């Protein structure tokens, strides 16, 4: 099946609006301000999803969908914040399940309104089901099967209290496929026309899966390179390929100070790559690389060390791409950044936004053992060039 990236953008916008409605409903119910941090469609194998949710305990509410959309939608939050949520609801403490279930029901109703109105067809929700789940069991049924459908994800954050919600929606068939799945010939023709004959935006789903695995392999390479250069044991905690509004990416990085390196990618696809550590992690990793204690935690010596590390990680990260995509990709020298996390990535997002509102983001978290350090890698490829490269990927 072919997926039209443009249409995926339109769906993403619906999910975004739906998430805003849900945030509004939750704000009214809890009396605390909630904002949508990020909304995206994720492409991942069941195995990768299972890994990225490992160790989390969630409480949630799920509803089945019929009509305009078939599938399942889930509202979930971390089990550890359950008390915080209940204390915000009138009579919440004594109502527990019933309160949570209704909150989920109301938020999901808000989430789905936009879709139904866009589709011009009602979406029937089954009565909400309360659940407590370990790991990836929180996800809608079928998410782990990875049969070629997108998992829509939105994260809602309370601005003043420590309360985060996630909404997951897995549409399984029906009008949704018609929406995002281009019928090969017409979609390719329309895409070609729209882009002045230069490129189609419809790409084979299988290629997206392949690219997702490629990204995962790249993440493992990058983690190995950290291990090699620091002597620390590393592991890839999360690695996902997602399709998101670019404007959401800075918020995802957050406002904590970060240090790291950014690179421009040249070739097919071009784009940017950022390797960001929280300050303490950056200092710890630089420290591990340096033969002696640096005079200041994130001074010149640390900067040099992190640049070198970034170089090696980036090479490792994109190493496999060129081979698999059959193109050549190189990267610029590293540029050191040390500032508010969101600010460091905002110019990259701005540059890409000159050509696109949505983009694929490969988001990888690498953890080191022994010392507490964590690093996030964001790869932001140009959408059209990636679509073109992925399209070639499926050529026999």
């Amino acid at each position, binding site marked *: 099946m072919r997926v039209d990236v443009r249409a995926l953008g339109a769906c993403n916008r619906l999910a975004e609006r739906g998430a805003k*409605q849900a945030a509004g*409903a939750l704000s*009214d*119910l809890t009396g605390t301000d909630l904002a949508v941090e990020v909304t995206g469609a994720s492409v991942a194998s069941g195995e990768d999803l299972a890994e990225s949710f490992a160790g989390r305990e969630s409480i949630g509410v799920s509803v089945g969908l019929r009509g*305009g959309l078939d599938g399942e939608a889930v509202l979930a939050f971390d089990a550890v914040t359950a008390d915080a949520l209940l204390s915000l*609801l*009138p*009579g919440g403490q004594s*109502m527990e399940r*019933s*309160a949570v*279930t*209704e*909150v989920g*029901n*109301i*938020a*999901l*109703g*808000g989430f*789905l*309104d936009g879709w*139904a*109105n866009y589709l*011009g*067809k*009602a*979406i029937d*929700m*089954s*009565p*909400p089901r309360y659940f407590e789940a370990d790991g990836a069991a929180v996800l809608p049924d079928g998410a782990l099967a990875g049969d070629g459908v997108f998992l829509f994800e939105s994260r809602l954050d309370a601005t003043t209290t420590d309360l985060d919600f996630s909404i997951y929606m897995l549409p399984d068939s029906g009008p949704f496929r018609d929406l995002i799945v281009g019928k090969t010939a017409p979609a390719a023709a329309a895409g070609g026309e729209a882009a002045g004959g230069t490129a189609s935006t419809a790409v084979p789903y299988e290629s997206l899966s392949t690219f997702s695995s490629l990204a995962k392999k790249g993440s493992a390479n990058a983690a190995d390179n950290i291990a090699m250069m620091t002597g620390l044991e590393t592991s890839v905690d999360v690695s996902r390929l997602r399709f998101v509004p670019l404007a959401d990416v800075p918020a995802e990085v957050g406002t904590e100070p970060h240090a790291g390196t950014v690179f421009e990618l040249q070739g097919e696809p071009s784009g940017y790559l950022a390797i960001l550590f929280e300050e303490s992690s950056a200092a710890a990793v630089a420290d591990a690389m340096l033969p002696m204690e640096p005079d200041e935690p994130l001074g010149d010596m640390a900067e040099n060390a992190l640049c070198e590390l970034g170089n090696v990680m980036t090479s490792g990260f994109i190493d496999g791409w060129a081979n698999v995509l059959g193109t050549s990709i190189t990267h610029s020298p590293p540029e050191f950044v040390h500032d508010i996390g969101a600010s460091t990535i905002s110019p990259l997002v701005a540059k890409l936004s000159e050509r696109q509102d949505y983009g694929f983001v490969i988001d990888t978290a690498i953890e080191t053992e022994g010392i507490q350090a964590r690093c996030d890698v964001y790869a932001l490829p140009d959408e059209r060039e990636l679509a073109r490269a992925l399209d070639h990927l499926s050529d026999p």
Partner: protein
Amino acid sequence: MATRVLIADDSEFMRNLLREILEGEFEIVGEAENGVEAVNMYEEHGPDLVMMDIVMPIRDGIEATTEILEDNPDATVIMCTSVGQEEKMKAAIKAGAEGYITKPFQKPNVLDAIGSAV
């Protein structure tokens, strides 16, 4: 005499919330947890007004409303729903609902809706 209200919602949380809003000014004659109970309790109590949730197990609020109105054309039903979908609202109005309120609601919305329906 106070307006007699039947609450139909599968969520205990929501029923409590509505009860809190309505108690004092209205007489609550019963709380139904699904569409079938709603129809039975309507027959039993003959309330002036039903606050009806749409999404309920066994029989949903739209079906229950249709059934209540078949036998009691004068019944007044307000739909309470977490769903603001246009198509759903059309279905609710078509089934004969006098009005609807969207969850999460606040006391003034509820009283307004009741004021214009009764």
